[in-house]
């Protein structure tokens, strides 16, 4: 009995330790989806983050950055749990989080309960995160899903001649935002979206979805990602699907284009739009690709960085440059850092990025087409570059507000 009591007291005193120590370092918490459907995306995000550290270094003035990484599974609750752990246990002062759309909405709301800390979005792209009731301490240096689709609708209608399309997408905020961007532009140009199918995140059996795909459309738009996208492609190929495809930003991405097996070949010729294009000739992009490739052995990375790697790279870059501008000064609830972050203009690998008044990125978008490099590797080839894409997609803010928030049925297929 005595032994047990002594043990408990020892445990208690153990918990006491590790509370207070002098802080010479700046602690930064990072989350990524290292579990579940989006594991591959999370892993490449972390690669982009490490590439940024290799390129920019970890020093800010005389202080050293220290990073703690936590894992999530693309669900909002896992993101909130991870962020809380980082803040409360690891005592991080700045967060680089999260990766996925719904995580972003939850973390933005959580950020309001910690107004003294700074949150930098790592890669999530739901519109609501920064458009509705934004948190003053939440900064997003990547565009949202709708911005990433700019150019695709017009290109499909005018150049490819598609008139009727159907969409298949994962049933959550980021894909709603992507379809929102697509539908707005495609229907605005005169096209028709006849059918929108939504599948739960983490779907493995797509048989009923594939059976329900309409035959009388010119193309099918796929808004899937990670394991879902690979599963769909495998089953679509086995079912003998032959339709023209269009892809969302995480569908036509190295996370899918470098997957094993032949299913991905169904994607050759697919048109897509995203915040990056694998074969862009811009020197800054090429330099980033080289840095990414040099940072990891070929079997531990993709042939070219995915959108997630690019986003994590951009966010990390913003963080380090912002901290350097204020010389690591985090006093007065990080006020100086927040001011610097809001003003910073990034020369990101995927084009210039600056923030609007909601701390949402205005950046460059790319329309791409999937090509085979002749050696069996697939890349997205740039066909059009659109600079200065803002969150209202060029619409007048009042008109844009009338369209409504992205959901299963919003926007309607018409010209706004």
């Amino acid at each position, binding site marked *: *009995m005595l032994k*047990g*009591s002594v043990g*408990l007291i020892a445990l*208690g*005193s153990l*918990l*006491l330790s590790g*509370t207070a120590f002098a802080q010479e370092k700046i602690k930064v918490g990072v989350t990524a989806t*290292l*579990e579940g459907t989006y594991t591959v995306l999370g*892993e490449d995000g972390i690669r982009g983050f490490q590439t940024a550290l290799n390129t920019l270094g970890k020093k800010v003035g005389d202080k050293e950055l220290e990073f703690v*990484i*936590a*894992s999530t*599974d693309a*669900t*909002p*609750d*896992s993101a*909130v*749990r991870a962020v*809380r*752990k980082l803040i*409360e*246990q690891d005592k991080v002062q700045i967060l680089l989080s999260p990766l996925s759309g*719904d995580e972003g*909405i*939850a973390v933005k*709301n*959580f950020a*309001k*309960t910690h107004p003294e800390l700074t949150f930098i979005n790592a890669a999530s792209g739901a519109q609501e995160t920064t458009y509705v*009731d934004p948190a003053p301490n939440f900064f997003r240096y990547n565009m949202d899903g709708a911005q990433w689709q700019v150019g695709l609708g017009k290109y499909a209608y005018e150049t490819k001649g598609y008139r009727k399309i159907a969409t298949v997408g994962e*049933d*959550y*905020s980021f894909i709603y935002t992507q379809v929102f961007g697509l539908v707005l532009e495609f229907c605005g140009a005169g096209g028709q979206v006849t059918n929108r199918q*939504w599948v*739960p*995140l983490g779907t493995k059996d797509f048989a009923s979805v594939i059976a329900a795909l309409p035959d009388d459309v010119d193309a099918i738009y796929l808004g899937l990602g990670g394991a879902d996208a690979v599963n769909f492609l495998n089953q679509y190929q086995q079912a003998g699907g032959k339709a023209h495809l269009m892809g969302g930003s995480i569908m036509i991405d190295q996370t899918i284009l470098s997957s094993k097996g032949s299913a991905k070949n169904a994607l050759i010729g697919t048109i897509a739009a995203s915040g990056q294009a694998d074969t862009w000739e811009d020197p800054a992009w090429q330099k980033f690709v080289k840095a990414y490739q040099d940072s990891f052995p070929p079997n531990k990375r993709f042939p070219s960085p995915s959108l997630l790697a690019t986003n994590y790279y951009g966010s990390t870059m913003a963080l380090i440059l912002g901290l350097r501008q204020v010389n690591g000064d985090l006093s007065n609830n990080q006020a100086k850092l927040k001011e610097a972050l809001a003003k910073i203009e990034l020369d990101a690998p995927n084009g210039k990025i600056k923030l609007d008044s909601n701390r949402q990125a205005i950046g460059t978008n790319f329309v791409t087409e999937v090509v085979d490099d002749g050696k069996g590797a697939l890349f997205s080839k740039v066909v059009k570059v659109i600079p200065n894409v803002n969150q209202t997609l060029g619409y007048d803010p009042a008109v844009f507000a009338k369209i409504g928030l992205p*959901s*299963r049925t919003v926007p309607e297929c018409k010209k706004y």
Partner: protein
Amino acid sequence: MSLLQSTQLRTEPTASAARRALVRAWPELQNPVAWLVALILVIMPLIANGFFLIEIFATTLILGIIALSLMFLAGYGGMVSLMQLTIAGFAGYMVAVFGMSGNANISLGWPWWLATPMALALATIFGTLGGALAVRTEGIYTIMITLAIGAAFYYFTNQNWAIFNGHTGINTVATPYFWGIDWRADIAFYYVTLGVAAICYFAVQYVSRAPFGLALQGVRDNSRRMAALGFNTNAHRVAAYAFASFIAALGGVLQVWNYRQISPGSVSVGACIDILIIAVVGGITRPIGPFIGAFIFVILRTFALDLLVKFGLDGNRFRLLIGLGFLAIVFWSSDGVIGLWERWRWRRRKPSAPTRPGGGRHG
């Protein structure tokens, strides 16, 4: 029955009748370790900081409460229900829907003292209805039907946008604030959780020894004989579901206050299984088991990643470590940690006696 056994062992012939009755009702009053654990839990805010207080201990207590409801059903009723987390999640969702949250188009904005009883009542009804379905089955079929309810609820929340707001879930759920105290502040919330956990623990302890609980155990052991004696066995079982649902609902309300957010991930099938793991690891023969199981679970879940990285291993494999931990516990003791503890005590008391204690039966 381990319960009866421990009461018999502890009564001293010299004690007065009143004292004996008290001791029979609450044997833990006699146990110095129980007093010590209670004392440590009460003064915990003095020794643990915010993270340990909430993320470890409050979370342990919340998961323990939900697992306790499963322990009650499985241990005393012989019904392994996998929908306890679903009931808790339902209660959490109802708090978010009836109360205040960031999703003003869904939440009705009732004050917490109206929304919470409503959530508890609805979740209890939900659980009782589920139980009424499940009592028609036994053993593996009960597991299947309750798992089916859990899975159906998960997919429903994922796809329903009108009430449950789909995959995004409901964010920024308001938490109680009255008497000038923010009850979600770390220390206040810890005591709320501790209080609810204690009430649930003693309620289960009490019910298990009350005529209803004894009849329930009778139904578990031989339902035909109980039916022949004139007991309505199905009614007993449904009542057990109702009681367990209420406990699970309390856990669910605390859970949503803790995270201020609820989404389908909180009620996923994986999370339902976690509750079963917690109950099995802790041991389902005594009400303390689920809390011990929850503590082990929370510790592993929180620190496995850091531990692997510290040893220079790939942090991504942390689920493996969690799985191995559970395998080890279940391998060495089919009654969970409680079983290990009892066996160890048994051995110390009677070195010559056979090493296995009676141990409670479970489904």
